[in-house]
């Protein structure tokens, strides 16, 4: 029976909508987490909700696993198949369906690239607030699946705070519309439940987003430090003294040097041990008060230099450096493991130290670039996946990093999701009953279990996942 399925799918999707040959499926074997790889049996690229619905009906009936994929910029293996099955890419569904500047929302297809929304509503003085570093490539559907964050989520909140409605195709092909005209709909908050479900509940095809008015004034500042500890303490004090910047980002020396060698060179001083990138928004007096308050704290912590971007061009340059930091690490080693943990903001200095010590103990190259204001650390470990021993050390160090952060009162993930990367560490944070309850919720959305199986919840028994594969 299985051999007829590709033919049925192709009759729905046409030649442009399906990839069957092996070579063109290879790029779908992983996302940004390159050490977990598995080539999917088929790649489907539907062009509409209806096409996706028709495909899911067939796949559901046959019990074939389905992995949804946006642009494959995720960092936890969320879009990587575990045991074959089908990858469904949303890259052909990238239309902007509606922009309502008065009511400040937009309705878009899920494959639209994050930054395209802001481009499209720029003339109305509006923008879409969540801004992951990959925002020039990642899709809004992927943002929804992982409840993505970004530097400005310190002020504006993660993706879940900006989603007003979703059109979702469930595993059996049923279409669920969760678009309410009111901001506080009656009944359970199903949107809240779906956002961050990592492709295990269904596939969103249309997203209604909240657009945010641009602030009157935006100031971007750079504090340059001779010492990483001082940069961390500056952030802790800014939070403690209740200043309200919209972003607080720290980059350490190795990161600065990699960025400065790249096309995104931002003019960060390469001899600095750390820089703190700060953004402040609001009315002119609000901004000035914040800038003065923050500058005083930074000076108290012995900065080498204090810079204020003079215009939009300088602001963009400072930010481009930050956003290109992950890619710039390609200059250090072929692969990068981006850890994503959250710690109490009173303990930034201590935990950045501890994560650095752990990596040094395992003889690994670590760089730090993180959303300091949120306490969201990204210890980045550069490695080469071809080196088995190095690979083992990376995984052991990552495990220890998660452990010390949780012990200090932090959590497993800030914004990248769990996926494959942290699946087996879930027990560090959750009791078996918690995970049992999560599976119960998953079963309510997808009783068949075909949606992104093998992710997020640890596998407890070897017969738990029995995904079917095509016979070739």
């Amino acid at each position: 029976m299985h051999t007829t399925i590709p033919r049925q799918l192709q009759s729905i999707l046409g030649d442009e909508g399906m990839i069957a040959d092996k070579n063109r499926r290879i790029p779908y074997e992983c996302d940004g987490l390159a050490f977990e790889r598995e080539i999917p049996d088929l790649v489907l690229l539907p062009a509409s909700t209806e096409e996706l619905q028709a495909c899911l009906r067939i796949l559901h009936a046959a019990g074939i696993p389905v992995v949804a994929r946006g642009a494959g910029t995720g960092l936890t293996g969320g879009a990587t198949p575990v045991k074959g099955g089908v990858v469904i890419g949303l890259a052909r569904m990238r239309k902007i369906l509606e922009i309502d500047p008065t009511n400040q929302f937009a309705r878009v297809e899920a494959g639209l690239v994050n930054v395209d929304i802001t481009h499209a509503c720029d003339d109305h003085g509006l923008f879409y607030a969540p801004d992951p570093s990959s925002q020039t490539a990642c899709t809004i559907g992927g943002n929804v699946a992982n409840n993505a964050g970004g530097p400005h989520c310190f002020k504006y909140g993660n993706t879940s705070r900006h989603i007003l409605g979703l059109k979702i195709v469930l595993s059996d092909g049923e279409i669920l519309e969760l678009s309410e005209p009111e901001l506080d709909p009656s009944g359970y908050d199903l949107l809240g439940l779906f956002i961050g479900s990592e492709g295990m509940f269904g596939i969103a095809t249309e997203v209604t987003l909240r657009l945010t008015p641009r602030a009157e004034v935006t100031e971007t500042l750079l504090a340059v430090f001779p010492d990483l500890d001082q940069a961390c303490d500056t952030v802790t004090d800014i939070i403690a003294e209740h200043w309200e910047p919209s972003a607080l980002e720290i980059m350490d020396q190795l990161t600065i040097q990699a960025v400065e060698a790249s096309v995104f060179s931002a003019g960060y001083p390469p001899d600095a041990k750390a820089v703190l990138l700060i953004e402040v928004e609001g009315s002119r007096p609000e901004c000035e008060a914040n800038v003065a308050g923050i500058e005083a704290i930074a000076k108290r912590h012995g900065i080498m230099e204090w810079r204020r971007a003079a215009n939009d061009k300088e602001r963009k340059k400072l930010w481009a450096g930050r956003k290109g930091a992950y890619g710039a690490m390609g200059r250090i080693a072929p692969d990068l493991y981006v850890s994503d943990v959250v710690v109490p903001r009173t303990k930034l200095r201590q935990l950045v130290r501890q994560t650095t010590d752990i990596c040094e103990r395992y003889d690994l190259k670590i760089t730090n670039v993180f959303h300091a204001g949120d306490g969201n650390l990204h210890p980045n470990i550069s490695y080469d996946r071809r080196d088995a021993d190095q690979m083992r050390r990376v995984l052991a160090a990552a495990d220890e990093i998660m452990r010390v952060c949780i012990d200090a009162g932090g959590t497993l993930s800030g914004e990248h999701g769990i996926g494959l990367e942290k699946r087996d560490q879930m027990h560090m944070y959750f009791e078996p009953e918690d995970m049992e309850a999560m599976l119960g919720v998953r079963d309510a959305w997808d009783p068949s279990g075909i949606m992104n199986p093998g992710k997020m919840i640890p596998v407890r028994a070897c017969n738990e996942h029995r995904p079917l594969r095509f016979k070739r």
Partner: protein
Amino acid sequence: MNAQDIVDYTKSLDCVHCGLCLRTCPTYRDTGRESASPRGRIHMMRSVAEGAAEVDQHLIEELDGCLVCRNCESVCPSGVEYNELIAHTRSALADSPHRSLLSRESMRFGLRSVLTSRSMIDLFALMLRLGQRFGMLSLAGTLGKGAENLPDVPPAAERQRLAPVHPAQGKLEGEVAILEGCVMPVFFSHVNRATVEVLQAAGRQVHVPKGATCCGALQAHNGELETARQLAKQMIVSMEGPRDQTGDLLPVVVNSAGCAAQMKEYGSLLAEDPEFAERAEQFAARVKDFSEYLADEAGTRVAEALATDPPQIQSPLTFDDPCHLCHGQGVRSQPRELLDSVHVQRVEIDESESCCGSAGLFATLRPADSQRILDPRLGALRASGARTLVTANPGCQLQWQAGVKRDGLDVEVLHIAEVLQRSLKS
């Protein structure tokens, strides 16, 4: 051939898989296929080198489908040398049995025998013109079908070659050598004349060395790296001919962005050649795009030579960055500076750094794909309200002219040299 020879494996490891290139890639945006994106193509190439994939027609098709616009290089934080990666693999796979014999042989003939020789180009132009005038291309089988996608060849009177030397106007400020080009004298001899006139007006004595025909860009991008190296050497020798009064070699000014981008990379192309490695580096440093040279070296003199009354140019105008000017050479501000010294309003066109679909031989070999790449750009042109579109590369100019004509837009497509020529004081 073993897998490691097909791929420049070391360069492929520079990709850290971040995906920031995806949105800038015209073929990924057109198809939504990651195998048609820079990251995907690199991923497949690396898999071939590691023995995890075998070359087949699907892989070749995805690699051939690349425009080599190099937009991905402009946004790659890791500094992947994509252009060199794809040139290497295309060259290694040029003779692959997964291509048809006819396509292999006709490609090789065109790249090795026609484009490399002035007399062959002239003969081919004549045949093409006759074929186009008398509608006989359809009789010539597959080759004729490819030729149907070529633009109309102008009559012989408009296919004039340049004289070897052109004196400066007014006070002599310097001397330059220019590249006459392979197809430029066929389709764009008026652009070549405009280039000379503007340089003369800027006080430059212009030399036109005749010792080399083609820069080798089309060969390097289409699997003929060895031919490209031979052409590069001829070009270096030819351009080492003219010297100024003090005996120094001249700046090499190029009015075709694709050629200048290639010529600036002779250093790495010939890095392994003991005789030419150093000469190639020195040559590459002398190569300047037309607008780069004028704005950086002669900005004031050009401005003085321009008339203040509105010239014969429809307003507003816009500059569409040729890929091999902005991504290939990093030249972005200079053409805009020059155009702002012309007394015509200038507007920006959305995504001006995105490929128009011309891409060397792409528009000829894949007209339908090329049209789909151009379509959103035509939409952006309409939205900009521009009535003159300015470019700096012959392929882009042909592509835009064809698109504007097809859509019936009231937009004139000009090379930046033509805009400046029309603006000169009479």
